[in-house]
């Protein structure tokens, strides 16, 4: 138990670890508890590194391989830390032809990261989506819940300056 705690406490506060344990406790005796536990754990801890998956596997009495299989299957779950804000560039057909790809490239260059990665200061995570149904506004960039339409590479800095 001690070694596990040290591993967890490297990344998370004692309060977060206690919260994780209480989430596991809540679903412990329920069949099918793994996905709700992972969901709540990710909300609380922001990501699910090995130490967290181990804690969950031990708590729910499941093989670690099962937990890992589920975490990697669903795109919602992430094993690497996420940024405070998520930038999603639309690469659906309409946005793509109107310059969506150039936006992704500009952001990759600006932050020095690739699609799916997070900036070193954990401020932004860069992702792409395939069509948001807002093709009339293309190219579209969504930051957290906000939709920004007709974005040009030159306008990106201004858009992102609202988020800190």
């Amino acid at each position, binding site marked *: 138990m001690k*070694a596990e705690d040290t591993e967890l406490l490297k990344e998370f506060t004692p309060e977060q670890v206690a919260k994780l344990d209480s989430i596991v406790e809540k679903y412990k005796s329920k069949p099918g508890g793994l996905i709700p536990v992972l969901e709540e754990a990710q909300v609380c801890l922001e990501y699910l590194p090995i130490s967290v998956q*181990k804690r969950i596997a031990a708590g729910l009495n499941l*093989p*670690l*391989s*099962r937990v*890992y*299989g589920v975490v*990697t299957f*669903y795109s919602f779950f992430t094993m690497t830390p996420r940024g405070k804000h998520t930038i999603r560039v639309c690469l659906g057909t309409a946005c793509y032809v109107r310059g969506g790809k150039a936006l992704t490239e500009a952001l990759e260059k600006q932050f020095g990261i690739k699609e799916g990665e997070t900036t070193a200061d954990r401020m932004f995570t860069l992702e792409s989506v395939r069509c948001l149904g807002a093709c009339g506004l293309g190219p579209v960039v969504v930051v957290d819940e906000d939709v920004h339409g007709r974005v040009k590479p030159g306008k990106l800095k201004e858009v992102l300056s609202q988020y800190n």
Partner: protein
Amino acid sequence: MSMVKLTIDNRSVEAPAGSTILEAAKSAGIKIPTLCAWPEIKHTPGACRVCMTEVEGQRSLIAACVFPVSDGMVVHTNTEKVRKARKMVVELLLANHPQECNYCVRNGSCELQKVAEFVGLKEVRFPYTQFPSEGLIDRSSPSIVRDSRKCIDCHRCVTVCEQIQTVSVLTPAHRGSDVKVVPAMNLPLNESNCVTCGQCILVCPVGALYEKDEVDLVWKALQDPTKHVIVQEAPAIRAALGEEFGMPPGSLVTGKMIAALRRLGFDRVFDTNFTADLTIIEEGNELLKRVKEGGTLPMITSCSPGWIKFCEHFYPDLLDHLSTCKSPQQMFGALAKTYYAETAGIDPKDIVSVSIMPCTAKKFEAQRPEMASSGYRDVDYVLTTRELGRMIREAGIDFDNLPDEDYDAPMGEYTGAGTIFGATGGVMEAALRTVYAVVTGENLPSLDITPVRGLDGVKEAAVKVGPLGDVKVAVAHGLGNARKLMDKIREGKADYAFIEVMCCPGGCVSGGGEPIPTNNEIRIKRSSALYADDGQVQKKRQSHENESVKNLYDKFLKKPLGHKSHELLHTHYTKRGTEMPHKQDE
């Protein structure tokens, strides 16, 4: 059971309600190809899509392995549409599979190869030429190699590891075209909880899982004139090696096997059965000692290295229950470089000790750091039955027409009790024969203890042993069954004196190193061959009657559980736990 009537390929077929088209067709003698279904382990994921059939009234083609039959159903397994679809499915599987068949370990026993032939595939229009192997071939385990490039995602290995062995190392990770079968966190196999049993190898349809090959190392030793190379073979080899040469399962080939080993150039051909008999003497005395002195009971057998590793990972609190006896392989190894070296007047540093095992875990066991009690590696190389088969073929030996030859002295004599070690229940039966004789001074009324034989998962028996009264025993094979007994011990509800556990379902005759295919029918046939060796071939059927073992005690060991025995024949175990080292995903 209610039956349904259906038509398959214009023939009326009756099948039990709830069975699948695949099962119904099979019982009617109609073959439908498949690459993922393995009904014995309840594995029908419908994943490979090779078993396409046409069902009238259905919009699209149907996977026969998962679709239940119903009354009046009309199935076609051989239409233009079906043949075309199957070809396409196999073509696409091959498009994503390295074209290395000529030098693949499964060349000739590959199910994908066979299915490609079945569907009459003539070309692959989209050959995959670039297979980066970096990070996709895991050679970290001393026993098993995993080649993800060749994996066709049938997930049989996942099922056998999780459902049958309850080790749960392998899992499908990621999704869609990125799916890969990996250990948790994509750890190398040797850092996972893998017990190296190799049951995954036996179910793998292709060459994605196979034994760590040591053939070349053995050739090298055989060709070195300064080395004295000796060999031991586990009981299960003689009941299975024939299959490597096209003989029917259950052929007992002891004499030909010995002849083949001599022709390969081994200087002495000895037998693991000799140390199996020795194990019975040591383990039987250990059991009696524990019973008399109030030691930890139930005592559990320790011959099966996959089982030992499982116990170390999952039941580290119960390691005291394990007999301290080394496995017969390791007892042999320790004696080869001490007792045999002394007897033959050979410097142990010049002895190379090779063992032929039905088992991939034996490779791991031989490399355990503590297995060097002779001052040298007790066992240098471990070959599986399949590897020995390859060597014999490579040497151009006509196995079928070999004469029957005999073992060399002083470590070649064995009794029927030693030979049944290879089947589940065999160690228990052998031990009871000797324990009974030691305690009562008489032989068991019947030497056949049938309740411990056969493929039931957990077997129990009680044998009246003179003043000890009823000795209650249990036998488990397959780690899922072992787990049941271990949980019972943990709860304090196991009132057995002695438990036999074999890691692999069926015991060593279906170890991870045995010929492919291995299934329940073949398990039973190989076991029967060993019981025939015990009941009909061998004149002596009790380990304590083995004259060479008696000699060994007289000349060298002095007495069971004595000083030398402790030094050479007994061992200790490592608490491993289920913790895994911290390592990031790729």
